[in-house]
């Protein structure tokens, strides 16, 4: 019995050491800034201001036969840098999400233009409604997260380590299907 306890203790110790070593380079806390809207975030001369977030149940996903919720974030994006910045590059740094992780991309064209091709000129400000369709969960309230990813989209590994959640809120879903 004593031998068994001794072996188990050594095993446990080695496991703890292995766990600590494995996780030494990974953040154990998610940085979260809880703020009330409007909220502003600035990086590299580009600032986002989120004025409000609305959410309602709008339609059904015909393929998967699930209710969908339209989430709209009303934004002002100000480009104070000396260069023109493509809108997709900016929006890739901001992500609206809900608990189910089934978000979609920006939906409507702006003034008839494809959002993928819009460029924010240097020293200009645009107002923009970022619209997303997310899956409706079977609950009366649903969380909406607005996250700012400090690094650019391409640097995936860095993003995982340095993601910052700028704002999150639980919003009642009205008119649930």
């Amino acid at each position, binding site marked *: 019995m004593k031998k068994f306890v001794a072996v188990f203790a050594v095993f446990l110790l080695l*496991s703890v050491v*292995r*766990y600590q070593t*494995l*996780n030494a*380079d*990974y*953040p*154990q*806390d*998610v940085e*979260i800034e809880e703020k009330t809207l409007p909220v502003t975030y600035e990086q590299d001369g580009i600032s986002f201001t989120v004025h409000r977030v609305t959410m309602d149940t709008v339609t059904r996903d015909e393929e998967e036969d699930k209710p969908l919720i339209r989430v709209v974030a009303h934004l002002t994006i100000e480009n104070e840098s000396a260069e023109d910045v493509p809108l997709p590059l900016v929006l890739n740094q901001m*992500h609206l*999400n809900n*608990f*189910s*992780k089934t978000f979609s991309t920006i939906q409507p064209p702006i003034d008839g233009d494809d959002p993928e091709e819009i460029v924010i000129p240097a020293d200009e400000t645009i107002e923009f409604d970022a619209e997303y369709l997310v899956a409706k*969960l*079977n*609950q009366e309230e649903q*969380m909406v*997260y607005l*996250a700012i*990813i400090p690094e650019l*989209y391409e640097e*995936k590994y860095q*993003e*995982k380590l340095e*993601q910052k*959640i700028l704002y*999150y809120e639980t919003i009642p879903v009205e008119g649930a299907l």
Partner: protein
Amino acid sequence: MIRSDFYRVSKRRRLWLLLPIYLILLVMELNSIFTTDMAQSLQDVDWFVQAGSRTIWPPLFPTKAYLIHQYLVYFIVALPASDLFIEDAKTQFLEHYQMHAKREKYALSHYMSNFIIAGLAGVLPLLCISWLDFMMVPSVGTHPINMNVLPADRAYLYDLFFDHFWLYFFIVQIRAFLGCGLIGAFSMAINNTFHNSYVGYVLPLFIMQLSVELPVIGDAYLVTELPSSVSKIGVGGWIFVLLMIAFILYDVFKQMKGNER
């Protein structure tokens, strides 16, 4: 008396059958970690998700090993000791016990031993699977935002998971232990009812799966996840659990009185 039950069960050759089952589960978990979903999650599936060993911990992110365990657990918990009463009736053990203890103590001892052994047999592979995950997959901080399979309305002790993970882990293992012990006791009661050593291996699984199909008890399907899940048990599930406990208690009293065939 419980100690003598433990000694008796520890000498059973059938316990070796658990070893290949455990090994298969662990190999499948390793396979998941290195080749399939888990490894993929950690690399780059979703640039937003901070995947880590806590976010893909099997109760939240069931791997193949975990799903197989959900079915095999009925056999695993019944194998070691669910036929103690039957064996006693077929051999001279009963007379031996009655020389040393009252019938009530004898019946309670068998049920308690079986409960503890079944709980341990069922939880051990879950602990090993979790250990593999925590040793192989890096851990990152958790927040509702990087959880993708734990809806707040279905999760058990939702807040504790984020605030005190290791306490939550411990409570989940205790819950699994109780669930496995309950199923082990249920197997023993079934064995006693049918006076057979083997029916308790399969009938509980059959009954649990049947409960999924019964609209009368609605969400009773959650009972099938009782040994290893972190889901809340619904009203229908609790009714099912209470029925199981009632059946077990009925058999306990029957054994106390010594109503044997």
